C-alpha cells in the first residue's frame, strides 16, 4: 500500500519536473549504495547525450531491495529498468510475466553487445528468450597468505587430497594458525563450497537439470556425485581445515582472520580484495583455483561465477528509452567507469584499462576468462524452496547433526514437492 | 503461663543507645502496660521480648529460660500487631491456625483449637472469610485469635487499638480485658494511650528516652507519680505544674503567689527549687462541693471553659501558666468571669526542679 502510494507520488513529481525539455521520463531502480556515485555520473552523461530522455534514478540497500522490487513489480507503476541477480531471482520475474524479452536489442547489436562475454550474457537466457543484460560479475576463489606459504615452502594444492594434507601441515607448523578461515553464520558461505564441489562431482548437464527441476522426477537429484561432494566437504571439516565454530563465525570475521595472519587460506569472493586491502594486507596474498577432485565426474577446472544485471519491465511505456539507458550503462566505456568508481568486476571488460581495478581483482577477471565452465552460486540458480533446504541443511551438516545421505534425502524430498507444485 | 524477667536490658542502633538499664519483673498472669511518648523505647522493649530485635545487653527470661538467643517462635510468646498483620490471602481460620499448620500439627487439632479461639472471640461465623471482608474490630479479634490459638505463655500487644475509632476502641478495650481474664496469660501491652494503660493494666511501666521512669499500679502512678514527667504524662488533663521555691510555711511560685504548705509532708528544706503540682481534680470552684482536707482559696479570672457533659474543665491563668480546674456541675463560664477556686493542698505534689524526682513522701 505504502510503497504504491510513494511510487505514484514520485512518478507524478517526475512528470511535473519533466515537462518543458524532456519528452520521455523513465524510472531506473538500482540496488546498493556503493553504485550511487557511478550511476549519477553515468546518468548525467546519458542525459547529455539524450536530451529528450529524463532518468528518475532510485536505489535501495541489498536486503530491503529483495522484497521491495517484488512489491514494485506487482504494482501499477513498475520501474522501467531494474536490478536483478541472474538465476532463480531473475527468472521469477520472467515466470510472473513482468520482465521483457530483449532478444531484439541483441539482434540489433545495441551498444551493450560490443565486447560482451557470451557466457555471462547466457545467464539471462531463459525459456528461449533473453531477459536481461549483465552489469557486474562476481566470482569466488581460494586465497593464500603468500608470506606464510613462502616461509614454510608450501605448495599450492592441486587436488582436494593435497588441500587436506596442507591443512595438517599448517596445523603442524603452528597449532594456532587456522588453515582455512571459514565463517558460516550466514549460510550462503557453505553454499559456495557446495557449488564448487557439486561442479567437481556432478556433470554440468545433470546438475542444471536438477537445479531447475527439469529432470524427470525419478532422476531428480539422484546423481551419486552430490553425496560424494558432501562427503568431501565433511572431510575438510574433519581434517581440521577450518576454525572452530564455523556456524557462528561471521563471514567478516573469517575475512579479518585471513587478512591479519591468523589463517593461511580462505575461500572468498571478488568483493574481498578491497576488504583485505583495508586491513593493510595489500600485496601479501594471491588467488588460486579451488582444487580438483580426483575421480570426480564433473568439471575439475571450472569456477563459480555469478552475474548481476538489469531487466526491462514488460509494462514499461518507454521500452525503447529504457533499453537505450540499459545499453548505455553496459557499454564498454561505462563498464570501465563502473570498475573505477564502484570497484566491481565489470561484466564487459573490453574497455578496461590498467589501474581501473585493484591488481587482485584484475587477476580474478583473467581467471574467470580462462575458466572453461562457470556456475553461479547454488542459491541463485536452484529453485528457491530447494535452495532454502540446501542452505539450512548446510549448517546441520557442518554441525554434524545430519549425514550427507540425510542431506540429500531432504533435498530430494523438497525437490519432488516443488516439482509437483510446478 | 510464666513470669517474665528483664535484667539490665539495653539496645544499640549502631553507635546510638536507644534503650538502657531496663529492669522489669512481670509475674505470672500479670497484665503490664508499657506507656510513654513516641521514641521512648516501649515498642523496642516489646520487640526484644518477641525476638524481632536483637538484644544488645542484658537478659530476658520467660519462665526459667533465658530467651535471648531463641527464635521468636520458640519463646512461647504471641504478638498482636498494631496493623493486625493478618495474612491477606488466607481465610480467618487459616490465619488463626497458621502457626499450628507450619508446625505440622494434625488437622483435627488445628481445627479444634481454631474453633475454641473463635468461640472465645465470637468469630465462628467468619472463619471462611478473608481479612479484607472483615470490619476493623473483627480483624482485631482475628489478630487476637491468632495469638490465643498458639497458647502462648506471654501475650505481647503492640498498640493494638490505635487503628480503631474511639467507640470501637472502648469496646475492644473491654474485650481485651475480658479475654485476659478468661485466658489468664501474662501480658505485655504497649500503648501511647494512658487511658488504655490505666484501665487494662495491673501495673504500668512509664518510659522516657529509653529508660524506665516509674513502674507501679495505676493508683501508684496516678497518685504518687515518681517524677514530674510521669505526673504530666498520666492523667487527662495532666497535672498542673509550676516552678517555685520553698519558703517558710510554703512555696513561692513564679509571679509571687505564695502557697501555704505543710512542708513536713514533702521532706524538703527552705530555699529548694521545686515544681509544685496539683491535679485538676483537686482544684474546684467554691461551692461545688469539694471536701478539701487542706483548702486554699484563690480568686481567678476564667480564660476558657470546656464543658464535657458530666463535668466542665476550667482554665485560668496562675503562676505564669494556664492551670486547669474542674467543675462537676456542667456549666459554661464566660471568659473573664471571676471565680474563686479552691485548691486541695493535701493533694499537692512537690518535685525536685532539677531531677524532676518526687519529693512528697506520701
Amino acid at each position, binding site marked *: 500500500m505504502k510503497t504504491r502510494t510513494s511510487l505514484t507520488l514520485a512518478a507524478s513529481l517526475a512528470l511535473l519536473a519533466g515537462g518543458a525539455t524532456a519528452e520521455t521520463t523513465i524510472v531506473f531502480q538500482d540496488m546498493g549504495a556503493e553504485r550511487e556515485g557511478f550511476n549519477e555520473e553515468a546518468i548525467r552523461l546519458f542525459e547529455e547525450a539524450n536530451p529528450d530522455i529524463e532518468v528518475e534514478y532510485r536505489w535501495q540497500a541489498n*536486503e530491503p531491495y*529483495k*522484497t521491495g522490487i*517484488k512489491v514494485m513489480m*506487482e504494482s501499477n507503476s513498475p520501474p522501467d529498468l531494474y536490478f536483478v541477480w541472474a538465476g532463480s531471482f531473475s527468472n*521469477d*520475474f520472467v*515466470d*510472473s510475466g513482468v520482465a521483457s524479452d530483449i532478444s531484439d536489442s541483441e539482434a540489433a547489436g545495441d551498444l551493450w553487445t560490443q565486447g560482451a562475454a557470451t557466457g555471462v550474457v547466457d545467464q539471462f537466457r531463459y525459456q528461449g528468450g533473453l531477459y536481461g543484460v549483465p552489469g557486474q560479475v562476481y566470482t569466488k576463489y581460494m586465497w593464500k597468505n603468500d608470506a606464510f606459504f613462502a616461509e614454510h615452502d608450501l605448495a599450492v594444492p592441486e587436488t582436494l587430497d593435497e588441500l587436506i594434507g596442507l591443512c595438517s601441515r599448517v596445523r603442524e607448523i603452528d597449532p594456532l594458525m*587456522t588453515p582455512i578461515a571459514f565463517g558460516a*553464520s*550466514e*549460510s550462503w558461505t557453505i553454499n559456495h563450497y557446495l557449488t564448487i564441489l557439486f561442479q567437481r562431482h556432478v556433470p554440468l548437464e545433470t546438475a542444471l537439470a536438477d537445479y531447475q527441476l527439469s529432470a524427470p522426477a525419478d532422476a531428480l537429484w539422484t546423481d551419486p556425485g552430490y553425496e560424494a561432494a558432501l562427503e568431501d566437504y565433511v572431510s575438510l571439516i574433519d581434517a581440521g581445515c577450518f*576454525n*572452530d*565454530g*564455523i*556456524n*557462528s*563465525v*561471521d563471514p567478516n*570475521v573469517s575475512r579479518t*582472520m585471513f587478512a591479519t595472519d591468523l589463517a593461511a587460506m580462505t575461500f572468498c569472493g571478488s568483493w574481498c580484495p578491497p576488504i583485505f586491502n583495508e586491513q593493510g594486507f595489500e600485496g601479501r596474498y594471491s588467488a588460486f583455483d579451488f582444487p580438483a577432485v580426483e575421480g570426480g565426474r564433473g568439471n575439475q577446472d571450472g569456477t563459480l561465477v555469478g552475474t548481476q544485471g538489469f531487466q526491462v519491465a514488460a509494462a514499461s511505456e518507454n521500452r525503447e528509452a529504457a533499453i537505450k539507458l540499459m545499453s548505455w550503462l553496459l557499454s564498454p566505456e561505462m563498464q570501465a567507469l563502473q570498475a573505477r568508481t564502484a570497484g566491481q568486476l565489470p561484466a564487459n571488460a573490453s574497455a578496461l584499462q590498467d589501474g581501473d581495478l585493484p591488481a587482485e581483482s584484475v587477476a580474478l577477471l583473467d581467471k574467470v576468462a580462462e575458466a572453461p565452465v562457470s556456475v553461479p552460486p547454488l542459491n541463485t540458480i536452484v529453485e*528457491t*524452496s530447494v535452495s*532454502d533446504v540446501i542452505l*539450512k*541443511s548446510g*549448517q*546441520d551438516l*557442518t*554441525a*554434524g*547433526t*545430519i549425514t550427507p545421505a540425510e542431506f540429500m534425502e531432504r533435498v530430494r524430498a523438497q525437490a519432488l514437492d516443488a516439482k509437483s507444485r510446478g | 503461663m510464666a513470669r517474665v524477667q528483664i535484667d539490665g536490658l539495653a539496645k544499640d542502633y549502631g553507635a546510638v543507645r536507644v534503650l538502657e538499664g531496663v529492669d522489669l519483673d512481670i509475674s505470672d498472669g500479670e497484665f503490664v502496660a508499657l506507656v510513654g511518648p513516641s521514641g521512648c523505647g516501649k515498642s523496642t522493649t516489646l520487640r526484644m521480648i*518477641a*525476638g*524481632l530485635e536483637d538484644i544488645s545487653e542484658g537478659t530476658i527470661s520467660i519462665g526459667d529460660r533465658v530467651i535471648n538467643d531463641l*527464635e*521468636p*517462635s*520458640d519463646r512461647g*510468646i*504471641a*504478638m498482636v*500487631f*498494631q*496493623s493486625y*498483620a493478618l*495474612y*491477606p*490471602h*488466607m481465610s480467618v481460620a487459616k490465619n488463626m491456625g*497458621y*502457626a499450628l499448620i*507450619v*508446625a505440622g500439627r494434625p488437622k483435627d487439632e488445628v481445627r479444634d483449637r481454631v474453633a475454641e479461639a473463635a468461640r472465645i472471640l465470637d468469630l465462628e461465623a467468619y472463619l471462611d472469610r478473608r481479612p479484607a471482608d472483615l470490619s476493623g474490630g473483627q480483624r482485631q479479634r482475628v489478630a487476637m485469635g*491468632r495469638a490465643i490459638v*498458639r497458647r502462648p505463655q506471654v501475650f505481647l500487644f503492640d498498640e493494638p487499638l490505635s487503628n480503631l475509632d474511639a467507640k470501637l476502641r472502648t469496646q475492644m478495650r473491654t474485650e481485651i480485658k475480658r479475654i485476659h481474664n478468661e485466658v489468664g496469660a501474662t501480658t505485655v501491652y504497649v500503648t501511647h494511650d494512658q487511658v488504655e494503660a490505666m484501665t487494662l493494666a495491673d501495673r504500668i511501666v512509664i518510659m522516657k528516652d529509653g529508660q524506665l521512669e516509674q513502674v507501679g499500679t495505676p493508683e501508684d502512678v496516678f497518685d504518687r507519680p515518681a517524677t514530674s514527667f510521669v505526673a504530666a504524662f498520666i492523667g487527662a488533663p495532666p497535672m498542673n505544674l509550676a516552678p517555685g521555691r520553698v519558703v517558710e510555711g510554703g512555696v513561692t511560685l513564679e509571679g509571687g503567689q505564695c502557697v501555704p504548705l505543710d512542708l513536713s509532708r514533702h521532706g524538703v528544706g527552705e530555699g529548694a527549687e521545686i515544681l509544685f503540682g496539683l491535679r485538676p481534680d483537686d482544684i474546684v470552684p467554691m461551692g461545688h462541693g469539694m471536701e478539701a482536707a487542706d483548702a486554699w482559696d484563690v480568686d481567678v479570672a476564667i480564660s476558657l471553659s470546656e464543658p464535657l457533659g458530666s463535668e466542665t474543665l476550667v482554665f485560668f491563668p496562675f503562676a505564669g501558666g494556664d492551670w486547669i480546674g474542674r467543675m462537676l456541675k456542667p456549666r459554661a463560664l464566660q471568659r473573664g468571669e471571676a471565680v474563686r477556686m479552691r485548691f486541695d493542698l493535701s493533694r499537692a505534689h512537690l518535685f525536685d526542679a532539677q531531677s524532676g524526682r518526687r519529693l512528697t513522701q506520701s
Partner: protein
Amino acid sequence: MGMATIKRRQNGTAFDLVMVAPALLLFGLFIVWPAIEALHTSLYDEPNRGGGFIGLANYRDMIADPVFWIAMKNNVLFILCNLVFQVGIGTIFAALIDQGIRRGSTVIRTIIFAPLVIAPVAIGVIWSMLLEPNFGLVRQGINAAGLPYPSQGLLGNPDLAFPSIVAVGAWNYIGFMMTIMLAAMQGIPRDLYEAARIDGSSAFQTFWHITLPGVRGALILCSLIVIVGSFKTFELVYVLTRGGPGNSTQVLGTYIVEAAFQLFRPNYAAGMSVVVLIVAILFGSLQVMTSRRAA
C-alpha cells in the same frame, strides 16, 4: 451518583464516540486493517505463482511444513524456559534483595537491571561477539579456567544454540522481572513477615505462604509479558543465529521473515502471521480476564 450521572451518560453517547474516535481510527488503520489484509492475503497464492485464490491451502501447507512446527515447538519451549528463567530467577533475586542483602543492593540492582536499557538487537550483537567461537571472551574465560570449549562454539552447535539464546534472553530480562517483583514484594507489609516469624514459619514457608500470594498479581503480569514477548520474539534469535544452525533455533518470528523475504512466499508468511495473531489474542484476552478478576 444518582440522576445527574445517569442523565449525562444517556446524553453523552455521541460525545463519547467523538472522544474515542481518534483512538479507534488509529487502531483500525494500523492494527485491524493490516490484520484483515494479512488474513485476506493469506488466502491467495504467491504473486510469482499466479496469485490466484487458493482458500486455506497456505494453512494446509503450514500443517505439513516441518519447519513451521519446529518454529512453533521452539516458541513454546522459549515461553517455558523464559518463564522459568526470567520470571523464576527474577523472583528469586527479588526475594533475596527484599529479604537479605542490605549492603550494596542498589549496586546489584543496577547491574541486574542495566541490560534492559539496551535494545535487543544490540544485546544480540554484544553476545554474538562474546560468544564468538574462536576469539570470544566466553571462550577465553572457559579456556583460562582450563575447561574445554565446544568445538562448534555455543551458537554454532544445534544442541547448545537454543540454551544460549535462552541464557542471553534471561540476562536481558531478569532485571526487568526482578524490578517488577521487587516492587511488589516491597509492597508487602514488614509486619506480615514478623508475624510469620513469630508463628514459626520457615523461610521457605514464608516465601510460599506470604510472599508469593502477596505478589500474585505481579507474577501474573510478568508471566503474561514473558508469554506474549516470547511468542513474538524475533530480534534476539535473528541477530544471534538467524534461526540456525539449520532450523534448530527457528521461531515463528524468524520463520515468517524468512518465508516472506528469502523464500519469496509473502502470502504464506501472512498466513503464519495470522496464526501468531490468533495465539496473541488468546493470551491477550487471558490477560484482560485475569486483570478483571483481580480488580
